[in-house]
């Protein structure tokens, strides 16, 4: 583990053509990290995420994505992802490969990656159409009961990015609230980068809170507000208006390009701290 700026951590870990997971289940979405990758220009990416929302809409709209592996591609609480739709329906700005799963499959596949297994098996996809269109959904017969179970390959991203509440000065990371799939996504990856709201002397963690030891992560970067417009449990609320506005911005190719230029390309990760003004929770 090394403390780095986000710019250094992205330059150090991400290459053209690599596979990246930016995980976060509505909560703790690593927006700042995703924007840094967009700014540094890496392309031909395989993006993995259970719930690709507006950050993947942005990557796809910029034409940086070769393939997307996912289980629910929507704007939570709002509707569809308009840049993803434009790529899937009109191949604009270019076609994307899609490997589509269910949540259960993705969760099991990350867990298999973390557990060092080649594949995951579970009871799933019964009667489901995805089995017909995704060649990575296969089946195995239980050697003890004969039950036909679904099997999917383990997910092992080249790099996983997550956002968390805090790290201590050794780089141990604390996550609390809706912890989603982040622990599995970190432990499944070849390298993991964690952005945090703050760095503290003592994590003061309850023994069962999710702590990732410093030696499981490649880099820790302090980026206050780095989840915005997603939220950080106990620290700031979700910017629901931003999700609603995204629906309008992403509906138009030019409006999208203009917005990305102003708010991503000509911005920096330091700008996130001011984006959460007015959304902060009082310290408890």
């Amino acid at each position, binding site marked *: 583990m090394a403390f780095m700026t986000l710019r250094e951590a992205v330059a150090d870990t991400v290459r053209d053509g690599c596979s990246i997971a930016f995980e976060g289940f509505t909560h703790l979405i690593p927006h700042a990290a995703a924007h840094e990758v967009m700014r540094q220009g890496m392309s031909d990416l395989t993006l993995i995420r259970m719930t690709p929302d507006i950050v993947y809409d942005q990557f796809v709209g910029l034409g940086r994505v070769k393939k997307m592996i996912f289980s629910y591609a929507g704007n939570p609480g709002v509707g569809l992802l308009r840049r993803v739709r434009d790529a899937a*329906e009109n191949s604009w700005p270019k076609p994307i490969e899609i490997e589509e799963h269910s*949540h259960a499959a993705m969760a099991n596949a990350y*867990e298999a990656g973390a557990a060092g297994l080649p594949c995951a098996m579970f009871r799933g996809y019964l009667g*489901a159409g995805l089995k017909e269109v995704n060649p990575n959904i296969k089946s195995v017969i239980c050697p003890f009961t004969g039950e036909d179970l679904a099997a999917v390959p383990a997910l092992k991203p080249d790099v996983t990015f997550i956002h968390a509440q805090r790290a201590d000065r050794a780089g141990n990371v604390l996550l609390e609230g*809706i*912890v*989603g799939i982040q622990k599995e996504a970190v432990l499944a990856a070849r390298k993991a980068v964690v952005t945090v709201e703050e760095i503290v002397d003592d994590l003061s963690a309850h023994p069962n809170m999710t702590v990732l030891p410093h030696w499981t992560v490649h880099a820790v970067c302090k980026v206050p507000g780095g989840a915005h417009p997603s939220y950080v449990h106990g620290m700031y609320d979700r910017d629901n208006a931003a999700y609603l506005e995204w629906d309008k911005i992403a509906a138009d190719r030019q409006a999208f390009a203009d917005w990305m230029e102003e708010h991503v390309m000509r911005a920096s990760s330091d700008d996130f701290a001011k984006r959460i003004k*007015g959304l902060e929770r009082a310290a408890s």
Partner: protein
Amino acid sequence: MSDFTPDEMMTIAASRALTNDDVCFVGIGAPSAACNVARLTHSPDITLIYESGTIGTAPDVLPLSIGDGELCETALTTVSVPEMFRYWLQGGRITIGFLGAAQLDRFGNINTTVIGDYASPKTRLPGGGGAPEIASSSQQVYMTCKQSRRAFVQTVDFYTSFGHGDGGDHRQRLGITTKGPTLLITDMAVWQPDEETKEFTVHSLHPGVTREQMRDSVGWDIRYADEVVETEPPSAEELTVLRELKARTKAAHERSSRSGSRSQSDG
């Protein structure tokens, strides 16, 4: 109480199907409103579970997404997503999976994946999320969805979540041991599958709804039960609870959104 909307009737009729003993896996949108009205009226001890990992949640306002902070803050416990799908859903602990739908057919098969062909879709929808396994691992499935010719179709374009397939014993033939869709509540009627064919059959019509209106909003020839009754209209208490919940939700989401103009400029 005489004045209510079809939407309110749908939510309230759906809420009545739940009980105190249920462990309900809640889909976002219409199911979420119905489940919380049940909790706030006749079933205060119902366990509501959202796929983000929140177990036994009791939100004061309806969440915008399945991962809102409100769900975690009011939950008995919050578990990781793999634990949610493996131990709690696949483990068989969910009595009711409550799902919405973009498109469904008369056997309760749901499509939320694509309109048109999968490889070159006319409309790319979000996909299944948790629904394919909610549909097969929950002990039974309730569904709620507004009726329209666009949504209620002869054949779904894609089997996102398997209901009763082609009907009859299709679930058993695929090795599925759970009951599947047993109830469909819409803005016009309450439907239940026929015991033999598993085709959804109308059991009650909401007050004022005619068979002609039904025909105009459904893309197949509707079957009616021998005895079709009128759905009990919403009680004063049910309507008050639902309207207060919606008002609290609107106020809370406006508050947390601050001013829209600022966040647009800052992004």
